[in-house]
């Protein structure tokens, strides 16, 4: 039992589940230690029997495969989950990866392929089909794009007054002190700060100072 890969199969298709159990048991290195027809039962049983690898159908009633994977990552992180999906959808694959699945296998692939994925995931490898790899690259590109500055450098022009305000903020002055220094109302300073943050799409004064400092926009003291 020690050298066998202990697996659990959760699928509401009784025939497929029974068939997979029977075929898995014909493999020399795999043993099925549990099976369940629903997400809820699978969750309870997996937490109790702690298989090394769990095959989970994505579309089970009462708790789908993605939700189940997310819970298992918290409650039984050592269990490696392989999701069995019907359709090759980028969003679905991404949700599975984000939920913590170690692999995603389409039911349109063969049983032999599934066995290879189980062995690979059991060795600690994350299984990645060409489709999954493409989805991952797309998502990484999207995330990288989201992290890029939304405002291209040089495309935003701050007024001379706004640059004065940022410079004084960088010296640690409050709005009231800036107002006194520039002989304007405190509310006017607040408006300038608001406009600066709005133009630069930044969250706070510190970010504005950092932005100006990185671009040598701060006015030098005379």
């Amino acid at each position: 039992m020690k050298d066998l890969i202990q697996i659990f199969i959760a699928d509401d298709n009784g025939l497929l589940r029974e068939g997979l159990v029977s075929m898995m048991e014909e493999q020399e290195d795999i043993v099925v230690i549990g099976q369940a027809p629903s997400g809820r039962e699978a969750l309870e049983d997996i937490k109790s029997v702690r298989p090394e690898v769990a095959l989970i159908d994505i579309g089970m009633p009462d708790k789908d495969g993605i939700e189940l994977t997310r819970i298992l990552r918290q409650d039984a992180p050592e269990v490696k989950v392989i999701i069995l999906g019907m359709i090759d959808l980028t969003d679905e694959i991404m949700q599975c990866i984000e939920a913590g699945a170690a692999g995603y296998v389409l039911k349109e692939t063969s049983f032999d392929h599934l066995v290879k994925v189980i062995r690979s995931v059991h060795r600690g490898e994350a299984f990645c089909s060409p489709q999954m790899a493409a989805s991952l690259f797309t998502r990484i590109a999207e995330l990288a794009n989201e992290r890029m500055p939304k405002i291209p450098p040089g495309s935003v022009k701050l007024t001379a007054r706004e640059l004065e305000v940022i410079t004084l903020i960088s010296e640690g002055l409050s709005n009231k002190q800036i107002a006194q220094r520039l002989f304007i109302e405190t509310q006017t300073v607040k408006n300038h700060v608001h406009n600066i943050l709005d133009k630069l799409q930044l969250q706070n004064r510190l970010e504005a100072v950092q932005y100006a400092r990185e671009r040598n926009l701060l006015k030098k003291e005379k």
Partner: protein
Amino acid sequence: MKRSNEKIKVILASRPKMLSDVIRNMVEHQQDMEVIGEVLDPIELLIAAKEIPVDVVIITPLKADGKPRICFKLLEEHPFLKILILSAEGKTAVLYQSNIPAIHIEKPSVQAIFQTIRKSIQ
């Protein structure tokens, strides 16, 4: 009527592939049955049924609502053929035969499915 030593010949027209592999394995575990072919679409199935002597066709349509149209065509051309329609989600199984009312298999387990097939062939 089949001779007692003759195996029941089965053609699989099932999708997805994983389910097809499972059904093939189940059939191969029955001593009196054998898979003689596997087809991917209805056209291939019609051709195969014409060319190969077959007793049973197991079809898993993606949408199992009512009798698939291909059943009418197959039974018209091969009146001794038995057609088992399994829903892809595995919840329903119906055996269609020519001039005999369809047999609905309650809770289609492996055992129930193959017993129904055997009875229909006898």
